[in-house]
């Protein structure tokens, strides 16, 4: 019952935060000479279209993986700021491998996904290794590794992994992954239930995201590893005394976090781009940090956060077309994040007080008997 109440408060506080964020953004819109009602109206109208919703999900999927990668580290007090670099290097190498090998359908896709996870895990695990063996703080090392990933990615792409372009094509890219290495869209499923997403292809990776979210929950709450992870985060001293090896936990957590980070780029790669190009989406790793915070490291919370970010991302596209600066959306996202954090803290205090009052009525007579 108490869990239920917490959920209600979490939802209410997030809702309030969003309302608050909308108000602040309205002020910003108004000050910058735009009519906020009109802007919101357009966003809403555009945002609830089936194709927009499908696109919102597509945008949410990578953010969800990214958030889970970050949240896993958070659970033990590790700040993996390197998801950005991890997914970018992972998707580049996975794209190159995917184009170079020939395997039958599902195996081909599986090989690409596993490659990405392995690269992400190695990249992130290296930061874990540095922390344990060399005492380098993971924030420093993962940020540095982000730069290395960007530089090395560009170098690998330009020198070894790019395809020979026909004359006139100036976009540097890896060769295209053949049909067998692509993930089919879920549009068929949408059609069965009578929805038409138009030109948007709902990514097949959405299914894997749901599975991964469930897996995340099981890993954290029902496995020994998850317990050791949370124990290490809650009290390093108590964890060590209990025989939990802190170094092993750091490396293992970074490796798993990196493996999840490797999945961030898969939705776009397998569902749309089918190759790595220099205009492959960036910043997904950093946005994931925000989503993890918004969702309080909880698999359902993060899913909601990712969908919200995805939806805003899509809905604000219309603003651009109507001549309203798209930067508003960034401000909006920042404000939402801040207000959720604040609203949650405020509501938390209220819950405590309410709970305390609620039990007293029930308890007074019992206490009388005892003495």
């Amino acid at each position, binding site marked *: 019952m*108490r869990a239920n109440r917490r959920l209600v408060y979490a939802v209410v506080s997030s809702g309030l935060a969003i309302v608050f964020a909308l108000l602040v953004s309205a002020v910003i819109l108004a000050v910058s000479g735009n009519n906020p009602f009109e802007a919101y109206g357009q966003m809403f109208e555009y945002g609830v279209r089936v194709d927009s919703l499908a696109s919102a999900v597509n945008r949410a999927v990578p953010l969800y993986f990214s958030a889970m990668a970050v949240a896993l580290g958070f659970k033990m007090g590790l700040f993996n700021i390197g998801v950005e670099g991890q997914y970018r290097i992972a998707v580049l190498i996975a794209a190159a491998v995917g184009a170079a090998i020939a395997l039958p359908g599902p195996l081909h896709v599986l090989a690409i996904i596993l490659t990405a996870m392995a690269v992400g895990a190695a990249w992130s695990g290296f930061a874990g290794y540095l922390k344990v063996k060399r005492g380098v703080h993971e924030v420093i090392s993962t940020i540095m590794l982000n730069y290395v990933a960007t530089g090395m990615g560009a170098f690998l792409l330009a020198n070894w992994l790019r395809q020979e372009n026909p004359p006139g094509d100036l976009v540097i890219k890896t060769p295209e992954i053949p049909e067998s290495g692509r993930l089919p869209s879920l549009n068929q499923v949408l059609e069965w239930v009578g929805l038409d997403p138009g030109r948007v292809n709902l990514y097949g990776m959405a299914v894997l995201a749901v599975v991964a979210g469930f897996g995340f929950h099981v890993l954290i*709450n*029902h*496995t*020994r*590893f*998850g*317990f*050791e992870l*949370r*124990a290490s985060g*809650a*009290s390093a*001293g*108590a*964890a*060590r*005394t*209990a*025989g*939990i*090896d802190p170094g092993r936990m750091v490396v293992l957590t970074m490796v798993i976090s990196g493996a999840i980070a490797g999945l961030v780029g898969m939705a776009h790669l397998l569902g749309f781009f089918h190759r790595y190009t220099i205009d492959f989406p960036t910043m997904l790793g950093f946005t994931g940090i925000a989503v993890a915070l918004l969702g309080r490291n909880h698999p359902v919370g993060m899913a909601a956060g990712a969908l919200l970010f995805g939806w805003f991302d899509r809905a604000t596209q219309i603003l651009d077309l109507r001549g309203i600066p798209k930067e508003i959306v960034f401000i909006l996202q920042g404000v939402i994040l801040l207000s959720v954090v604040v609203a949650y803290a405020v509501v938390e205090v209220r819950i405590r007080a309410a*709970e*305390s*009052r609620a*039990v*007293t009525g029930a*308890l*007074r007579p019992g*206490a009388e008997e*005892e*003495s």
Partner: protein
Amino acid sequence: MSLAIELVGITKRYPGVIANDRINLAVREGEIHAVVGENGAGKSTLMKILYGMIPPDEGEIRIRGEATGMSSARDAIEAGIGMVHQHFMLAEQMTVLENVILGAEPRQGLKIDFEQARRRIVEISGEGALDADQMVEELSVGEKQRVEIAKVLFRGAQILILDEPTAVLVPQEVEELFVSLRELRERGVTIIFISHKLDEVLEIADSITVIRAGRTVATADPRRISTRDLAELMVGAELPTAETRLSTVTDQVLLQAEGVGTLSEDEDRWVIEDISLRIHRGEVLGIAGVEGNGQRELVDILMGLRPADSGRVLLGGEDITGMSTLRRREAGIGLIPADRHGRGLLLVSPLWENAMLGYQSQPPFTRGWLVDGVGARRRTEDVVDQFDVRTPGVEVKIHALSGGNQQKLLVGKEMLATPQVLLASHPTRGIDVGAQAAVWESIRAARAEGLGVLLISADLDELIGLSDTLMVILRGRLVATLDPGQVTPAELGSYMTGASQ
């Protein structure tokens, strides 16, 4: 005489419990007032309310007759109230001086006036009582406590709250503490003192308030009441004695240390040196010593939490010197750590996860890689039942339990895991007299079944009463082996301070 503090009808509710139920407390100006009561009675809660750390749901706080609406420790400090918590809150890496003035630095313009601070510290704690430039981490527990008290007085406290100040002290240190408390009383400081050691309470207190189940049940005059009657009032039970009757010691060695030692961090001196001991099946080996003389390092080496720089550790004849902590636990070495908050508990995790900590690789807590939620909860419920842990349930986060009840869980989970060897540091620290008897009883029962125990304790009666063999640790070395049947607490005390060798 006028009242320094008057608490009227204080009520504080938590989910599932009423910690304080219309409590009244009156403390006269300039007296030492003891508050006693069983674990979970509501003593710490009441003190935190008085200190402004938590707001009461109902009731009034009057300081020197004036009603106050304190809502933070800052207000309390302004009202002249200071509190020393049972768990010290000192910055280990700073000097005594820095710790004392932290947050209340006397200033001269923009600069901190260290000279003035130094003079005031001497004024407060007396000439030579504290070395202002020593690092806190180098201090003994008794000295740390003096720093805590100095810190509070430095802020001008006229009312001093001490929550279980003597739990961590050996008798000599308790005496020293009492001397300074009496001095403070001479200077007109009002002191509230919480303790489970009733003879100490009778020795130091001018008046006593007894709390039970969140209510004030009695006030007593220490000159007219015996510890027995006081215990009766508190828990409604007889005073326990820590007496081991029949010897169950066998000649089978379970855990053995051979010349173990460990170097300090900068490797320039031995923190403990050349320690050899044997724990036999069915034996309680007591280690007496002032805290900070190497007990913790000894336990850490035996548990694999610290490498041995010399010597070997053997379990059942097998060399385990390089074995990991987890393997040692699996091999049947249990541990009750001295520092329950820093090393024993996950404060914001539920009881059942705390019971699992240390046993996360073993049934009934886990099966392979999966946590067995049902088994783990059932085991925790057994601990709660058998060790009388006062809690609304096993899903409750452990920080919501009173200190003594947290300790009962720590002890109970080790006992129910039936280890071969138990390394127990201060197993009954903070536990009330009634529950203490139960813990002793369970240790005795397990010993009869063959458990070997390394018992470290500041409570000399406990040490003498439970141990089959007694050794004294001083500055990192075992300096004496004594017969607990012969030694008196006074003799033991002089061994511990090195007065008799």
